[in-house]
Structure formats: C-alpha cells, structure tokens
C-alpha cells in the first residue's frame, strides 16, 4: 500500500498547482465566505422590525397621534404615511408600500368617551404572512397601550376591559397560507437559477472549446451572436414559468391573476425578468475565463437573490443598506410583480416602478454584455 503514496502525492500537488493558477477561484474560496457572512449575518433578521405602516384617521381629535406613538413604541412598525382617504390607504397597501394600515373611524373619540368600546381597523398585507405577523404583533398591544393618558385625563370610566377593539383584516391571504407567498417567489428563484447559470456558460464554453474562433471568423456580429444565443432560453424560461404557475395552481391552490389587465402586467414582468436574467448570464460568460468560474459567479449572484430580495425574509424587514442592495437585484422587483399580480390584483399602474427597474436592469446589463463582446480574439 505504501506504493500508492507517491502517486497520491503527485495528484495532490498537481491539484494544488492548478488551484493556485486559477486566481478567481482562489479569491472566491477566501472572499466569498467572508462577504457572505458579513452581508447576510447583518442583513437577515428573523424577527422583522420597523415595518412601514400608515395611519388614516377620520376622527378630528388628536387620537391618531396617540395611536401612532403607541404603534411606534412597540418597535415593530414605523408609521411612514398619514393618508387622507380610504383610497390612498388602499393603494399604499396594494402597492406594498406599507405592511399595515390603521383606520380610525369618524366618531371614534366620541364613542370612546361614552364607553361604547369603538373599533379601529387594522389591515395587514398578509401576502407575506411572516411580515404580517410582525406588524400585527404591534397592533395587539394597542388597546392596552394607546390612549392611556387620554382616558385618564378625560375621566372616562375606568375598567379593566380595553376601552376599544381592534378589528384585524389579513388582506390578500386571509388564511396566512405560506405557499401563497413562497410559491410565486420560487418562480423568481427557479428562473434566475436556471437561466443565469445556463447562459453564464454561453460564451465561455465556446472560448474553452475553441469554437469561438470559427464563430468569430464568420460574418455574424456580436449583437447577432448574443440575440441568437439568448433567444432559445427565452422559450425555456417561458416554459418553466408555465409549468411552475400550473403546479402552483394545481398543487398549492395559489390564486392566479383575475383580470386580463393583471395577466398583462404579469406577462410584462415575466418577459422583462427572463431577458434580464439571460443578459446577466451572458455578461458573466464574457467575464469568466472558464466554465467553472462562470458557475461560481452565478452562485455568487444567487445568494443575495435569495436572501436580500424578499424571497426568504420580508424585504421591508431588512436594514436600509440591505434594501438598497436588494433594489439592484432583479429578483426583488420580480417578486413584487408576481406576488402583486397573483395575490393583490395589481395592474400595470401599480407596478410601474418595478417594471421600470427591470427595464433599466436589462438595458444596463445587456449593454455591458454587448460592450464586452468582441469580434476579435484579443
């Protein structure tokens, strides 16, 4: 058996030599864990806090201020908006700008003083059940915490029972079923994973196998090569989408868009997202020196797509710097679009910003990829 030791050593040394030559892989092995630990360690918070909320008061007294103060004291929500109308509040919730909307009815103070135990309405966006639970945790303390001073000062009847009630609505997903949240999100992750990885090798493979030389000696231009290489994958992406959505419907009863406008919005989002992923993969393949590197770069891209996009954790619960990073990632916008269209009846007008962001991403990344494509070997 001792005879095999030199041979093992030979292979081992060869492997180390090759590893050392491959600088990027080397860097990835060292840099990636450090970066990931820093980014995700600080960004991920299983107990989301400071979720955005809105308080709409139809009551003329200062009761709203007290409610706002009580909500913010919990640390779970930040009241960022004070809408003036039901429509305004509804739009804030539908577009995902707030996780929680509180409505105080017109005669709230009067009935409170009379001891009639009036109600206020708390609407949470339960399309993300985890975030909704956080927001509703803030609401649950309202009856005991809010208006304590007012009640004492105004000499309202003192009783142990709360002076008012909170009616909770879990909108978009009343039963808080997590598949409604996760499965549409998975569509984004699946599309990214397959499309980015498949196209990340498009150019690298040709270069590695030497076929690039033939391809470049033909009259085909870089733009023609890029469009020709990517178009088949658009079809792949569309097929994947249909399969995933079909299974979401059949196996998990995930709701689908209910109006043609909703489907149109969804379709726009899907097409932009697919093209964005393909462009990114193509850009990677012009950067990578080998297929292995292309693979690593794709993996490197997937992690923030999972953790900072709102797929694994509520986006609004991330710290502000992580949200800035998240806004750069197409999956973030796609998740809002697909969840918006499927669960929240969003139409094009509701998702303008996200579609714009995806459009910009496509332009920037496809432009960069094309800029890096050469007609020559040098």
């Amino acid at each position, binding site marked *: 058996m001792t005879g095999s030791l030199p041979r093992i050593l030979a292979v081992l040394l060869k492997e180390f030599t090759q590893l050392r030559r491959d600088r990027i892989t080397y860097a990835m092995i060292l840099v990636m864990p450090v970066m990931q630990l820093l980014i995700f360690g600080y960004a991920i918070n299983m107990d989301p806090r400071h979720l955005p909320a809105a308080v709409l008061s139809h009551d003329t007294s200062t009761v709203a201020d007290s409610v706002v103060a009580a909500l913010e004291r919990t640390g779970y929500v930040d009241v960022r908006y004070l809408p003036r109308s039901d429509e305004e509040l509804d739009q804030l919730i539908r577009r995902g700008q707030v996780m929680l909307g509180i409505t105080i009815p017109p005669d709230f103070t009067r009935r409170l003083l009379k001891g009639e135990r009036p109600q206020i309405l708390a609407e949470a966006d339960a399309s993300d059940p985890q975030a909704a639970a956080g927001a509703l945790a803030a609401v649950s303390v309202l009856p005991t915490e809010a208006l304590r001073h007012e009640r004492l000062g105004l000499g309202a009847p003192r009783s142990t029972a709360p002076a008012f009630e909170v009616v909770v609505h879990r909108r978009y997903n009343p039963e808080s079923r997590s598949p409604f949240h996760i499965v549409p999100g998975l569509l984004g992750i699946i599309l990214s994973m397959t499309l980015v990885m498949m196209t990340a090798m498009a150019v690298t493979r040709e270069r590695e196998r030497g076929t690039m030389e*033939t391809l*470049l000696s*033909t*009259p085909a231009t870089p733009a023609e090569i890029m469009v020709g290489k990517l178009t088949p994958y658009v079809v792949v992406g569309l097929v994947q989408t249909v399969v995933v959505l079909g299974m979401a419907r059949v196996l998990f009863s995930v709701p689908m868009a209910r109006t043609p406008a909703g489907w149109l919005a969804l379709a726009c989002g899907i097409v932009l997202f697919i093209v964005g992923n393909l462009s990114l993969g193509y850009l990677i393949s012009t950067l990578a020196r080998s297929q292995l590197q292309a693979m690593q770069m794709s993996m490197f891209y997937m992690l923030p797509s999972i953790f900072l996009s709102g797929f694994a954790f509520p986006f609004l619960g991330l710290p502000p710097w992580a949200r800035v990073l998240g806004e750069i990632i197409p999956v973030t916008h796609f998740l809002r679009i697909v969840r918006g269209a499927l669960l929240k009846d969003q139409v094009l007008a509701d998702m303008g910003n996200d579609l714009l962001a995806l459009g910009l991403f496509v332009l920037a990344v496809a432009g960069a990829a094309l800029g890096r494509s050469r*007609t*020559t070997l*040098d």
Partner: protein
Amino acid sequence: MNARAIDVRGLNKSFGDRHVVRDVSIAVDTGRITGFLGPNGSGKTTTLRLLCGLLTPDSGEGTVLGMDFRARGDAIKRQTGYMTQKFSLYEDMTLEENLAFVARVHGLDNRRERVEDTLHRLGLFDRRQQLAGALSGGWKQRLALAAATLHQPRLLLLDEPTAGVDPKARREFWDEIHTLAAEGLTVLVSTHYMDEAERCHDIGYILYGRLIARGTADAIIRDSGLVTFLGEGPGIDRAAHLLARADGVLSASAFGAAVHVSGLKREALEAALVPWRKEPFRWSEVPPSLEDVFIQLMGRERDERYTS
C-alpha cells in the same frame, strides 16, 4: 479587380511585451497558393489571424481582397474562409448540422443541396448523422476544410490543414486546393511539411515574427547561397553529430544511411569534410533541399532569438 489578393505592409502585433509579429509585409497574387513556413511559435497562426480580422494589429496597413483590411474587416470576413489550427467546429453537433450552421451563418441559398454536395464530395455522406467529435483527427481536418470553403470564398487561409492527415488524403487535399486555385481562389496555407511547401506556388518563411524569405522554392534555394554535400557509405549517419560541430558546417543531418552537410562557404565546408573523405564514404555535391535552406535560415537568426 485587384491583381493582389493580399497586399499588407508593416504588420505588427504584440501580446503584452512579447512582440510576436514584426514588420511583416506580404503580397499574394490572386489565384496563387502561398505556403507559410516557420518553426513553432514563429507567428504563423498570429499572422493568419491578423489577416482575417480575428486579431487587431498594433500597426500595419494595406488591402485584403482589394479592401482596406483594417476598416473593412466585416466585408473581408464574408469572402474569406479560415480553417483553424485546432479543430473548432462543434463537436456536439453532427457533420450535417455543422455544415448547415456554416451555410446559414453565411446566408447561403440552396443550403440543403450545398451541404449534401459537400458531404458527398468528402465521402462522408453516410456518416452525416455522426457527431463531429467522433471523427478521427484526419477526418476532422477534412470536414473543417469543407466548412471553410462552403461559402465559396475568394481567399482561403489554412492553418496547418494537413496535420495528422494520411498521405493519400493529403494528396487529395492538395489536388483540391490546386483545383480551387485554378478557379481563382487565393490560398495562404501554413505547414511544417517540406513536400507541401514544394507544392505551393511560392513560399514565405517566418522566423521569430519576421518574414525572412519570400519567393518560389527554387528562388529561395538559389538565394540562400547554400552549398550542400551528400555523404554516403556504411556508418556515415553516425558521423553526422561530429560533422555538425565542425567549423564551416551549418548543419549536418542524417537521412537514413546518408548525411546532408551544408555550409555557406565552400572552402570551409570542404575543409571540414577532409577527415571524412576516405573509404568507405563517398561524397557528392547536391542542390540543397528546402529543408537544408530552412535549417540554415533558422541558424542565421539564432542570435536575435530573444531580442525584441
């Protein structure tokens, strides 16, 4: 039409600080077959890539197929066939698919017909459904040539097209090249084989990036000023390495039971041979072969080998 298919001057190319092609000027008349010779790493592949627009030269000007070769690269590509040194068709596609791809990307009409014709001509029609990667080395070369000529280019750049091809196929290959040239195709072909060099109309010899000899094989031999003696007799081949070290001898190589001894100065060479002019050896002066000349050319530039 321009009588010169290629007419470029002052071509230079560096990779980092390695000056790989130095001041190469090359003119090739339409319909000529020019052999491109030189040792490994001398810059043949790089020069061919510069000519077909696959590499950007650092400097140089001129025309290829009558068009400014730096500005009209795209137009030149359309009329040029380039066969790479390393097989670079798609190994995971069948022969037919590869040829169909080439036909399509060049926008050819009658695609089917052309592809089938080509497959028949190559004698590969029955294997058209086979993956290109499964072909033997020589057959790959022949497929690559077919792909490079499918769009009927006016200029053909071949980079060691016959490496690993058997003698019969090589002969057919050269017959085919001559047929195409007779129809007006211009061919620039790099090779390491002397017999192939002799089948070219003329030759360019490149060494460390410089084109140091140009012309017909006869002219190059004549201009070399080389004197060559052929020694025969039992055991003479074993003397070759001793002769090679003698003053006045540029090269001495054994060919079977004979030895070729070359030098530039007749007197010095004769003097070096004196110890060997005895029985059982017989000596006679012969015209130098191309190979003798090229080996001498390599020696001439040896001092400059790593200068830039």
